């Protein structure tokens, strides 16, 4: 992969931003922002693949992220045996009944000739089937939710390392995207935007309220980590040695043994936090690079060319014999799966799963702003957008506080306007995001790093 001048500038801006924050606000803050930036960049690449390559709009980002998060819970949490004992059979029965119902509907559709009869029969069968299933299902879930509600109350997971969930999350989100795509693709673009937005809300509300599956609004906390815990690090020999080695010059200057010990302890505590975050950053970075590599390969492959052809002129691509509906479905699922991976990573980083935290403003629209600002159709642009926008999202608050202080410094410190403005600092980030989006769409509609048109 060769970068041109533009792209080198973008990369160096990204790197220098973090170094700058590292020196001003401390490395820990810088790394926290970096981790979220990488995750945002992965989400952005997911959206960019469906929107930038093929022009398929996907406003369901929030729903796919939540599916990824669910995967993280289901993969890593230890199973709750009691819950399986009381509710497992009921769930099993309702699952089997569900399959039977689908088979029945399938057969009716095949066997009954007349169209109006078909609708009636199917409707009746589905109605009765659902009533029976509901009976078993509600019994089972009620029992499951009763098991130790303060700590458990759900089925638990598979007790595997949480890293696996990143892949599983991709599959979960892809599966949901497949169903949505089957139903909704083929609608006009702005309808599709609204429908995907709505379905993602449905996904999140299901996760919120089906407590047997995800604990709902009670949240799941204390998920396992793929990296060591700070407390273990602080007690391990090699880590202490490493910290001493890094700071040897500083430590040698201190002569008094008591102060030396104290400084040492502080350094170790700080160091362990930074070390954990660095580990996360490394893991995420590897995932990002892998996805970036494959996304780029796909874009310049014949398949990528076909996607661009479909995006730029659907009619003529269709005339060339490309199956547009199928290709749209494929790319929608791939994009959603990447978003799902990012969702699982997000939950891994936080260590907790809070379904009520998924809000469209934060998890759908911001991601879209990242894509538009970075440059749709260009993967590096997507990463850049993710980095810059997330960075701005975090750093706007200190900046506006500073600006407001500066502009109102002439006023009385208890002035009502000044106090009100300082109170509403967190909301200025929305203002900034909106302005950035509007300006970019107006003056640089292809994004900061536009798509490269390859003539090959």
């Amino acid at each position, binding site marked *: 992969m060769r970068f041109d001048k533009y792209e080198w500038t973008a990369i160096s801006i990204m790197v220098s931003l973090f170094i700058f924050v590292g020196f001003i606000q401390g490395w820990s803050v810088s790394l926290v922002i970096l981790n979220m930036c990488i995750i945002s960049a992965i989400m952005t690449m997911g959206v960019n693949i469906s929107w930038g390559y093929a022009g398929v709009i996907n406003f369901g980002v929030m729903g796919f992220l939540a599916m990824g998060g669910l995967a993280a819970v289901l993969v890593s949490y230890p199973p709750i045996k009691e819950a399986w004992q009381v509710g497992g059979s009921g769930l099993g029965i309702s699952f089997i009944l569900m399959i039977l119902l689908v088979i029945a509907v399938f057969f009716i559709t095949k066997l009954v000739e007349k169209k109006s009869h078909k609708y009636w029969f199917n409707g009746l069968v589905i109605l009765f089937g659902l009533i029976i299933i509901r009976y078993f299902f509600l019994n089972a879930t009620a029992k499951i939710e009763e098991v130790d509600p303060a700590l458990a109350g759900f089925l638990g997971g598979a007790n595997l390392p949480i890293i696996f969930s990143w892949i599983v999350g991709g599959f979960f989100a892809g599966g949901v995207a497949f169903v949505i795509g089957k*139903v*909704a693709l083929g609608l006009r*673009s702005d309808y599709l935007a*609204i429908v995907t937005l*709505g379905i993602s809300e449905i996904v999140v509300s299901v996760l919120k309220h089906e407590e047997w599956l995800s604990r709902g609004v009670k949240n799941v906390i204390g998920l396992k980590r793929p990296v060591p815990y700070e407390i273990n690090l602080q007690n391990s020999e090699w880590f202490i040695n490493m910290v001493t080695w890094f700071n040897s010059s500083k430590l040698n200057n201190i002569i008094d043994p008591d102060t030396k010990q104290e400084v040492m302890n502080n350094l170790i505590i700080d160091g362990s936090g930074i070390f954990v975050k660095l580990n996360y950053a490394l893991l995420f970075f590897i995932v990002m690079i892998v996805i970036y590599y494959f996304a780029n390969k796909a874009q310049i492959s014949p398949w990528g060319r076909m996607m661009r052809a479909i995006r730029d002129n659907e009619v003529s691509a269709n005339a060339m014999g490309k199956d547009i509906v199928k290709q749209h479905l494929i790319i929608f699922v791939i994009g959603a799966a990447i978003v799902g991976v990012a969702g699982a990573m997000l939950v891994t980083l936080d260590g907790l799963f809070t379904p009520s935290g998924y809000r469209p403003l934060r998890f759908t*629209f911001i991601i879209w702003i990242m894509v*538009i600002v970075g440059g749709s159709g260009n993967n590096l642009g997507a990463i850049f957008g993710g980095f810059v926008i997330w960075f701005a999202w975090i750093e706007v608050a200190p900046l506006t506080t500073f600006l407001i202080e500066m502009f109102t410094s002439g006023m009385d410190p208890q002035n009502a306007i000044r106090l009100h403005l300082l109170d509403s600092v967190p909301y200025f*980030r929305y203002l900034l995001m909106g302005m950035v*989006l*509007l300006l970019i769409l107006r003056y640089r509609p292809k994004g900061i790093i536009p798509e490269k048109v390859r003539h090959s």
Partner: protein
Amino acid sequence: MLLNFVIIPGLSYGSQLALGALGVTFVYAVLRFANFAHGELMSFGAMITILFTWFFQSQNIGLGILPTALIALPFGILATIVLGLLSDKFVFKYYRKQKSVPVVLAMVSIGVMFVVNAIIRIIVGTETIKFSDGQKFIMKAKQFKAMTGLNEGLALKSSQVITILITILLLTFTFWFLQKTKTGKSMRAFSDNEDLALLSGINPDRVVFITWLIVGTLACVAGTLYGLDKSYKPIIYLNLVLPVFASAIVGGIGSPFGAVVGGYVIAFSEIMVTYAYKKFFKYLLPESLEPSSLVQLLSTDYKFAVSFTILVIVLLIRPSGIFRGKVL
């Protein structure tokens, strides 16, 4: 029984949705894009109305038993119209002249949504605000029992009655305007076929201007009524956008009559599906058959999902909505 908990809330919620959906439909039919900022427009109108209500309350101006918000409403409408026109002048106009594709305009409206959202939050914060005053109930449950001798109460909130009355007024006016006046007819012509309308000498800027007038009025009234009925909370309106869109599409986007019907369809189905029918069955069925649980079809939590399920079903069976849309 049903009247109390299904029909009256359904009617008032449906009226709010219908007014909102009508605004979305107008933007879609005349300006040709899906306006994601509509919810924020509603919120903005409600906010200005609240600010004026506070002002009037502090001056001791009121309407007695009616909420003070009614006098403040015209100011809110004015402000919303100004906001709409400003957003059009500085943002949407450029893309209209460029003849951008609808998706780009939808993205732009998201940008506007963010900005308006930020302005609202900076001005009033995110707290829940109750601003209804005056008499709360027109008829209390006990009075109704005494009046009719039935053993189930019927409570009538004044905000609900006001909602329904204002909606009837506004809808009549809008449809009269569209069908009977010359300007209304020119708007319909413009939305039907832009080129032909331009050829026959209709001034597009005027049509756009009138559209924003109507949209601003509808949005502000819908937002204020929703705030009166429930209570004002800036973040709620973002969630309200989705049912509003759902009603506009279900009714057939671009058709005003469809938007109104869609609003009521969505509102009634949301309330009916999540209503606990236990008491209802108690009256119909003999004692022995009385159901033990609440007999809810779905728990109240899924209110939101209902409107979208309907939307998806309608889009699958009849993609152009109940009333074939596209033309005012």
